[in-house]
């Protein structure tokens, strides 16, 4: 069952546009959103969070349009846009205290568990955290209210290989509980490690939105790794 559906999303800037972006996210599946820097990943994700206004297209969560149902939808999804870049001098505890008052399903026990798992000290402020720990801090907030879908913009960037591995394993565990996970990345090994589905964007257009197996069947050449496939596609080469 699709819990997020994007249809014909379009957003134009003076020197760039994303156009005809369509894909859907399924319950219990991990979707990797891949594309090079500037391909339109962040614009798409910001549109999905109503942070930028699309010029056209439909965005639906749980069968409801985002416009007009923003607050109710955001109660049921978790999201992080890269690292924590707000309230750098505030302690994690202070921010969490405010955040929990907004979420009907805030789970204090879950919050404590992730705090421990990510080895975060809630008496520290974002300014005192490394880039990797800031990503974890953002994930901590996104994961602590029992979200049914997680939308994460480059959650693995800045993480050391061990933390990345831990995080991707965590994705597996969360998706097994029925949560849809959508994460953007330009690190192809992240996709190889855990993605069930791939949404591939290039120059503002969706090239493929399908399961990883279908993607490999359609685009990869024999004995070619996923990374080699993407590099070949980005160079403009085809299967021929």
């Amino acid at each position, binding site marked *: 069952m699709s819990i997020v559906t994007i249809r014909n999303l379009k957003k134009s800037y003076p020197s760039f546009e994303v156009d005809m972006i369509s894909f859907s996210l399924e319950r219990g599946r991990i979707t990797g959103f891949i594309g090079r820097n500037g391909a339109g990943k962040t614009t798409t994700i910001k549109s999905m*969070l109503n*942070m930028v206004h699309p010029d056209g297209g439909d965005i639906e969560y749980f069968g409801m349009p985002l416009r007009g149902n923003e607050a109710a939808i955001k109660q049921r999804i978790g999201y992080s846009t890269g690292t924590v870049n707000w309230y750098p*001098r505030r302690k994690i505890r202070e921010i969490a205290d405010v955040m929990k008052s907004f979420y009907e399903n805030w789970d204090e026990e879950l919050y404590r568990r992730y705090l421990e798992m990510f080895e975060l000290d809630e008496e520290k402020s974002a300014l005192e955290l490394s880039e990797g720990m800031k990503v974890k801090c953002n994930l901590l907030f996104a994961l602590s209210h029992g979200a049914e879908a997680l939308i994460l913009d480059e959650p693995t960037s800045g993480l050391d290989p061990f933390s990345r591995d831990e995080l991707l394993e965590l994705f597996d565990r969360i998706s097994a509980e029925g949560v849809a996970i959508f994460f953007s990345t330009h690190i192809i090994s992240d996709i190889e490690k855990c993605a069930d589905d791939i949404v591939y964007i290039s120059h503002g257009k969706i090239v493929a939105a399908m399961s990883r197996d279908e993607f490999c069947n359609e685009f990869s050449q024999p004995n070619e790794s996923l990374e080699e496939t993407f590099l070949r596609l980005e160079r403009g080469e085809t299967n021929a």
Partner: protein
Amino acid sequence: MRNILMKEMKLSASPLAFFFIAFGLMFFLPGYPVLCGEFFVTLGLYQSFQYAREANDIVFSALLPIAKKDIVKGRFAFSCCIELCGWVLMLIAVLLRMTAFAEAELYRTNALMNANFFALGMALLLFGMFNLIFIGGFFKTAYKTGKPFITYIIVCFVIIGVAEALHHIPGLAVLNAFGSEHIGLQLATLLAGACCYVIFTFLSYRRSCDSFEVIDL
């Protein structure tokens, strides 16, 4: 609504916004343009807007499970709270000057505007102008504070100047009434100020919601 207001107070507000409420007590000062007290209260609010902007509060708020118009509502609610707290201090000063200190020589010989209900009405008008010009201007971009604040400063001090000058104009000396003199007129001017405050704040809120809704963050 309560959680948005608490977010504003606990995270977004600069401590100066709370400290500067005390400038409402400038209504006690003799020989001083008392309406400047209103300006200093709004100066604290301006600091708060800057503080929140530096902390990237708009993006933080946009990620919370609230509609974009609720972000605007929170900022207006916080500003109105601070303004009304400052105004209550002004009211206390006015009530004391109208009663216990009604005959005080210090206030009677004051060449400047008397702190009475007319002054309170003017303070509300000025708070309304702050909400209309500064907050409304801020939400056009959600990051530019300089231009709307300078515009507000100019309008604010022109109004303060006019308010200070009015009672020197023949026939308008009654605006400087002491104690309960011309109480009907004093209350009418207070009511007019309150109406301006409500109308300007509401208009600005509506306009800010519309502008903020279409901004890309």
